[in-house]
């Protein structure tokens, strides 16, 4: 098992918890999609896994090692990478500087150079814009840069929060193709997606979150066809996704 989350409770400041005793398991080399209504705790789950939020209770184990309470940089070092919803680039730095920051933990200059070359090979569009300031890229390009940046440290588990948010349909296709490519490279991807149909048809396995706990899990295509879940959680989302 790659990731084992048990009874995690987490939230912001002194507000009531968003995650209320959530448990779920992630296996190696699969792709997962987390769906659920707004406020279900999807983003909070990812932030808690990567250490931006500290769980108030519960345990998180990654490859058998306990990681709850570690700093984000320590968790990254263990091989869990995160792409937040707002893409979290450094707007005043160039594409190249952003990629180099992606490899901030790599102190070996030669390795850094190699990784950078590989990223440019996979994303020729970034090579063309290597000296452009990230803040001036289009939304789709920014998302590509944010995804490409994670390749700098070759994580075992990649957590992506709503990569399709605010992007044109054609660009969304590219984003999912990229995620498929990452899967082929041996990464396990844990995706949070508002567009449930899109996300579930891409993933192997689906998690349905509601009110801060896991309500259902199963093979992704099964979830799409389960009439009860469709009615309860996919309702309008599914309809929108199929338009």
């Amino acid at each position, binding site marked *: 098992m790659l990731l084992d989350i048990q009874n995690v409770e987490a939230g*912001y*400041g*002194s*507000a009531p918890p968003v995650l209320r005793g959530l448990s779920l398991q992630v296996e190696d080399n699969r792709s997962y999609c987390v769906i659920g209504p707004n406020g279900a705790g999807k983003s909070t789950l990812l932030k808690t896994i*990567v*250490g*931006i939020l500290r769980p108030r209770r519960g345990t998180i184990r990654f490859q058998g090692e306990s990681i709850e309470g570690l*700093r*984000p*940089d320590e968790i*990254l*070092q263990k091989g869990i*990478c*995160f*792409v*937040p919803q*707002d893409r*979290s*680039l*450094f*707007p*005043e*730095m160039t594409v190249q*500087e952003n990629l*180099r*920051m*992606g490899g*901030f*933990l790599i102190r070996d200059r030669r390795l850094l150079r190699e990784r950078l070359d590989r990223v440019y090979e996979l994303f020729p569009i970034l090579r063309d814009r290597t000296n452009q300031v990230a803040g001036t890229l289009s939304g789709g390009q920014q998302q590509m840069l944010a995804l490409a*940046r994670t390749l700098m*440290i070759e994580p075992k588990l990649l957590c992506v929060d709503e990569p399709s948010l605010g992007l044109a349909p054609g660009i969304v296709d590219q984003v999912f193709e990229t995620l498929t490519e990452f899967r082929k490279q041996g990464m396990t991807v844990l995706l949070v997606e508002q567009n449930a149909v899109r996300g579930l048809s891409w993933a192997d396995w689906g998690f349905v979150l509601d009110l801060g706990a896991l309500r259902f899990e199963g093979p992704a295509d099964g979830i799409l066809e389960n009439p009860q879940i469709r009615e309860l959680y996919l309702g309008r989302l599914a309809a929108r996704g199929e338009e």
Partner: protein
Amino acid sequence: MNELQVLILGLLLGGVYALMASGLTLLFGVMRVVNLAHAAFIVVGAYGAYFAFELLGLDPFVALGLIMPAFFLLGMGLYRLLFPRIEGSPRFGEMTVLMTFGLALIIEGLLAFYFTGIFRSVDPPYATQAFILGPVFVPRAQLYASLTSVVLLMGLWAFLRMTRTGYAIRATMQNRVAAQVVGVNVRRISTVSFGIGMALAGAAGTLVSFIFTFFPARHWQWIAILLALIVLGGMGSLKGAVVGAVVLAVASSFVSDRIGPTWAPMTFFAALFVTLMVRPRGLFGKEIDR
């Protein structure tokens, strides 16, 4: 005085103000902390230079080499002592204002208790000399202080642009979450930044020790001026702090010369009001994210 003379004096003053403001704006950029004790630490730096000169006979430019590292360490220690207590608080912003305000009061009280409220200044030989260049004179103390500021600010700029830690500091300034996401230890970077901010305050204090008079309560006036010029430049922007400092120092020199010295401080507050009304984020500032 002729325009050139006023301009030169304003520029020299601006160089020193820029250094005084740099630590303040750096800290705001990295940590979103308005350090109201920043000017109080400048006063402490000035006292440090004063006693180094009076007791040890050290020229302020020699004392600079001791005060900066000492302040750097003091800053990191203070950060570790004070900030972890409030870091997780949902009212972090408000708490830092109260805490640094309290710190300023404590520092002022201690200075007044031990060193009294007497007006002081360091008096090296060049403090009262000037270069005469045709129609204008250039006070040597101001010139040296300003040039040293420029050198230190260029050093800071190079550090932020060229070192791994510098990249991490800029990354944290641009996007704190993103910095965490790529593996920057944001707490370590905050600690180092606080140290750097303090070293800059110590350096500024050393330089102002021989161009201004100082006393424990002097910091209130300075922090007001510094806040005005970093608001004009844009909170958290180093470029903004430098531009704001030079623009307002020159403007206040002209006000002082044409209208009268008592009106000079008004320049800063007028600029503060106009900035907040017309362009609250300042010249080079970003919209403040919540």
